[in-house]
């Protein structure tokens, strides 16, 4: 499955001490609308989507695919505290923003989108899940272009968040917003390209990587690949291998892909990723 890659955006912020930097000014600089009653998760989504679409007028029928391994955690914490600790009804906009589809609503509103707006997740592999859905829809002609984004939030206090996500005591954590704008492949024109294979078991991932590998490619290994599979993939790669190097967040394939594109690296990055026996190969080139 493949698509033309028209644009990308990358935001990754390692969090060590509260408070997190305000996103108000970056949002004012990037967004056309002034969005009220939005939480940090929605702000991250708006920031990434608006930056990805900078300078473009998107087709209103462009598909929107937004996801997160953990979801809008900060707002959900607030709602749980209101209900369970403070014995209050949640404030209406806090309650509505517990849903992922609130974030798609604000992104669609900001970018004037009227097409399909899906919110989907897979723990540790949300970009993989979203890309599989988006590329299928491009192939079926459901939409001609697709805006795909993963957003991960890291609410304070960080020692609580560390316990929630079972992060090591000394591990850095991060919030992030990583976006790709894809178009069904047709016609000429300079652009990047994304191609991918999904739903692979271990041997399937090895075979897919071997078939797709080209001289000059760089391999990135996802953090949840079993050690023996990672070792076989390292042996298979005849080039540099990227591993680790990012703070903990749940959509590291998204961070890896958009970070690579951000550097305007001309070579292709092959990402081997996924978890729990379900793997994917995602290749991006600017």
């Amino acid at each position, binding site marked *: 499955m493949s698509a033309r890659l028209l644009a990308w955006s990358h935001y990754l912020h390692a969090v060590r001490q509260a408070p997190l930097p305000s996103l108000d000014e970056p949002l004012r600089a990037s967004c056309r609308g002034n969005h009220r009653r939005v939480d940090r998760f929605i702000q991250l989504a708006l920031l990434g989507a608006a930056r990805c679409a900078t300078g473009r007028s998107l087709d209103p029928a462009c598909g929107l695919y937004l996801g997160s391994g953990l979801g809008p955690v900060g707002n959900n914490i607030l709602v749980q505290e209101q209900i369970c600790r403070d014995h209050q*009804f949640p404030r209406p906009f806090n309650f509505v923003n517990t*849903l992922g*589809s609130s974030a*798609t609503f604000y992104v669609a509103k900001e970018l004037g989108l009227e097409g399909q707006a899906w919110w989907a997740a897979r723990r540790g592999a949300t970009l993989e899940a979203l890309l599989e859905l988006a590329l299928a829809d491009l192939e079926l002609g459901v939409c001609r272009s697709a805006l795909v984004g993963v957003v991960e939030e890291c609410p304070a206090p960080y020692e609580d968040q560390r316990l929630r996500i079972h992060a090591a005591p000394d591990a850095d954590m991060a919030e992030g917003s990583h976006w790709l704008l894809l178009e069904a492949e047709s016609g000429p024109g300079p652009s990047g390209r994304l191609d991918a294979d999904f739903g692979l078991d271990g041997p399937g991932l090895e075979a897919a990587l071997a078939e797709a590998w080209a001289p000059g490619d760089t391999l990135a290994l996802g953090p949840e690949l079993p050690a023996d599979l990672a070792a076989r993939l390292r042996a298979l790669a005849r080039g540099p291998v990227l591993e680790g190097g990012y703070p903990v967040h749940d959509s590291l394939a998204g961070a890896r892909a958009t970070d690579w594109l951000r550097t305007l690296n001309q070579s292709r990055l092959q990402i081997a990723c996924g978890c729990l026996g379900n793997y994917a190969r995602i290749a991006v080139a600017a």
Partner: protein
Amino acid sequence: MAPRRVYIAGMGLSCALGRGLAACAEGLRQGRRNTVTVALDGYTEPVRLPYYALSGDAGTLFDTGRFLRLIPEAAIEALDQAGVGRVRRSRLALFVGSTAFGVSRAEGEYLEVLERHPGSAFALPRVGFQEVRDRLSSELGVGGPDFAFNTACTASANALLAAQRLISLGRIDAALVLGLELANRTTFTGFSGLQLLSQELKPFDAGRDGIVLGEGLGAVLLSAEPGPLGLELLGGASNSDTFSVTSANPDGSSIAALQRQVLDRCGLAPGDVRAVKAHGTASPLNDSGEAAGLRLAFDPLPPVVALKPYLGHTLGACGIIELVLFAESLRRGVLPPTAGFRVEDPQLGLRPLTRELEAPTGPYLLNYFGFGGNNTALVLGKTA
């Protein structure tokens, strides 16, 4: 490769009508409308709500372990009906739709620690959407790629549509699609705060004044192989309406556009549609928007059925729960009536079906709309 046809090979259902598909279909035939009263004390305003609880389970609604215990129920029924054994399950793709997923479990655990060790309690001790996948993997051996949808009340309808598309493209051969929504404090207090709740669910009625919540689990086994049920998922469409985060545009424009999109994608004309399963929440604004959208897209209107008076609004699960109940009724040859409708609203120009009709073969359209401006329609084919 030309897109493949996608069939319903198995179904499972647990809801206020009963536990198991046969019990639910019989409950629908009898016109059963079972609610219990949910009481939540300690808030500024006490919560007393009618609720369509899973039958026989009303006393344990807030048990912390209930979520994990119930997850496999409908899935087992669907897998058994489709004859999918352990070996095939190991690579079976899983699609799940819900608004709340395991929030009831997180609430329960937080409350327990708050009571025993308030100094060390922190909210939301569990995050993410993987609990359903983990439970179905350990209990039933379902081990393929998973997709969790959280698009409010269209969540499991979108899960069905996504699975249908991947099967039609040949990316996967079969999928277990699950919709679940179980009682939790967040939903009860959140909807109470929004003041969208009523004592009786009366879709499209002149006196409609809000929703009644419900819970349940529905499961569908989709397959590229034709099965004996005589049911096919022809396709669907989904669009986005940014009129309001909590309701579709009441002028019906986005809903009419959706009806046209879904008919176009499935190669159908409006006159081909045998009947419409409406979203029919009975909230004044949403029913107005749906009626306006249907009138813009269909002339004349096909029979319109709303199922929520039997089930309550099961939120993210309604996509599958209502499809399964509707499909089973069609299989039994019956287009079910809409309970709760008494007085026509002249503003709507829509009178839902109030008596049983024979259900012919052909395509049926199912509508779902959710918070966040998420609209989805599916087309179900009755082939036998």
